[in-house]
């Protein structure tokens, strides 16, 4: 136990640990922010994993073809949105079960990207970093936050924009109404399923950027297992955060730190059981949900399809 606390102490004072943690956290946050929008509209969007993967692969292909980071990010958005389009139209135009669609999409996208990657073999490289003067000189966290690739900096725009559209626009109000009480929303003239589809498209955009960041900012090349279940961690960050944006981001930071512990601790000379550590975010979320279940409430119609005239 003392050892463990010592390890935590060492990690907290090492700059590399913050860099690692934020790399994971920001990747998660790209997906989780969009997922949060979709969940506020009442969709439990399981295909987030597939959107990440589609974004990552499209970014790699865009980079391979043009060598331009901007084009790669645009490709990633197209990739993420195309997965979103299937999910949205299958589950909220046709009324197919959203979990089946999501799970199928995850399998389909994994198959498709690994199949295409083996045929086309995209070659990419890590994007260069842009150091922001002064801010990057803050001790400990400065380099982790402000000495990054420009794709990383997009998170500083994505999170406020998502907050703004959900809480400060008419569209956002309608979106939240859809998630809480679709029958009433429908009666007051809101196209419930349309709002839900749009929520999923937002997830597609942000998860696509997340995938691009993963390939160009964190890993440097595309691999089949590049996402490796982290889409689910981004999904549970939203749940952990109790469906608030603040909590979601906190969840991403926490889980990002936990994921990076696996890398940081051995580097600092500590032995640790990786399996138990990896399951920590999941256990923490289950415990948090059980304790705060009475206080934290999911959007009332989360994961329930809306068909007019059916309660």
């Amino acid at each position, binding site marked *: 136990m003392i050892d463990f606390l010592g390890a935590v102490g060492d990690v907290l004072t090492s700059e590399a640990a913050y860099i690692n943690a934020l790399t994971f956290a920001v990747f998660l946050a790209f997906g989780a922010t969009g997922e949060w929008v979709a969940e506020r509209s009442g969709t439990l969007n399981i295909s987030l994993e597939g959107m990440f993967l589609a974004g990552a692969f499209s970014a790699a292909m865009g980079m391979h073809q043009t060598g331009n980071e901007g084009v790669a990010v645009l490709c990633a958005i197209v990739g993420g949105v195309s997965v979103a389009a299937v999910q949205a139209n299958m589950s909220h135009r*046709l009324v197919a079960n959203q979990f089946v669609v999501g799970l*199928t999409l995850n399998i389909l996208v994994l198959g498709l990207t*690994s199949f295409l990657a083996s045929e086309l073999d995209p070659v990419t490289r890590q994007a260069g970093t842009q150091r922001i003067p002064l801010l990057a000189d803050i001790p400990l966290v400065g380099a982790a936050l402000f000495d990054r690739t420009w794709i990383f900096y997009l998170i500083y725009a994505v999170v406020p924009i998502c907050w703004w559209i959900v809480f400060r626009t008419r569209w956002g109000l309608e979106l939240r109404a859809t998630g809480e009480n679709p029958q009433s929303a429908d009666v007051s003239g809101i196209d419930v399923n349309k709002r839900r589809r749009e929520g999923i498209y937002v997830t597609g955009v942000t998860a696509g950027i997340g995938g691009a960041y993963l390939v160009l900012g964190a890993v440097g090349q595309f691999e089949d297992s590049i996402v490796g279940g982290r889409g689910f961690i981004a999904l549970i960050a939203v749940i952990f955060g109790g469906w608030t944006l603040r909590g979601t981001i906190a969840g991403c930071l926490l889980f990002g730190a936990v994921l990076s512990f696996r890398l940081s601790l051995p580097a600092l000379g500590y032995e640790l059981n990786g*399996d*138990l550590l990896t399951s920590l975010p999941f256990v923490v979320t289950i415990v948090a949900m059980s304790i705060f279940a009475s206080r934290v409430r999911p959007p009332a119609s989360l*994961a329930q399809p809306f068909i007019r005239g059916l309660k």
Partner: protein
Amino acid sequence: MTVEPGHATAQPGSGHHPDHHHGVDADDFKRELGTDGTLTEEPYHPNPSTPTADRLQAIGEVVFLYTVCIAAALGLSALLVEATGGSSAEVFNALLDGSIRGPGRIGATIGVAVPLLLVAIGTIVSNRAGLVNIGQEGQLYIGAAFGAYFGTKLGWSGPWVILLLLVASVVGGALWAGIAGALRYTRNVPEVLTTLLLVTVAAQLVGYGLKNQWLLLAPAEGRANRQQISQQLPENTRIPRIEMFGNEFPISAFIAIALAFLIAAAMARTVWGLRLRMLGHNPRTAQRAGVAASRYGGGALLVSGAFAGLAGGMMLAGGDFGNYTLVPGFPAEIGWTGLLVALVSRQRASVAIVIAFVFAALRTGSGFLAATGVERRITDVVQGLLVLALLIPPALLYLRQRRRQMNSGGDRT
């Protein structure tokens, strides 16, 4: 169909039933108007077709829709193969050879279909009760791990240990689903989320067990250094395999099919099945009628976990997965695929038998793809597209039926 009051006054005592009305006569054109001369909500259709013709047409439509969707899915897959320089005909032949045409391959496919079917049956039970269990992959892994512990670590062997192993698997799977059930009914935590989260926890937990000799790891002399696998099940602690027409498969296939019919019958014919369905259709009404949600819903979750666990145990003792050894990544997405089998077969255990076989065939067929030079991941694409294709027709038909009901005004709520 509603009968307008106008009809009774127009033809008193004519003995002419409005629903079996053939030919056109003058009255047919009046009936769109109600007694007070205003339009009724449902326009009268002169010359309605007979019920059997309607039915035939409906069946024809369903078959047509399914054919179009499946053809589109297969066509897209073929297009993908051709676009990347492969030959779709070769791929198709390789898939057929690997799954049914090659010698002994039907047996291999049956071996894969068994756990898929078991997972699907369990899922059908919990779905009927209106619960969304999507953690079968984890429940299956825990089941297999429990089975491996009882099969290898206690030093017992013999046919009765097979039974013990399977019971342990059932308990393991049920326990893992039970956590979700307990949280659902005591703390109100949605079971969708907990079952999903517990998948990863299960994988990490079994991974931990496979690193520690007091849990699952085989003794050092039986394995390569640093290899994280369990001991192999002893020869006499394996599910017997039989040979039929040159195809060899474990006898658990018969048990799985029997269980499928048993559950189908229990769902359709017993009070328990009725109560589960009540709970699934309308929890509030079910509660009023005396169906305790926690007891029946929790029970349904336990049953679905138990089936997933049993699938894990039979995978371990059946021999088609991991060579009677628990290895990392043992569930191999059988849990996820089994869940898809249940949902594609639309809650019917008997249909699930066929779908499980088809999905198993895709899996065993993919082993033969290497010879064609096409990446075997293409089968994931085919399977994914097929599932999406199979989801479309029922959704379309349901939507159309809904729209008709709304328009007729017969079922406004």
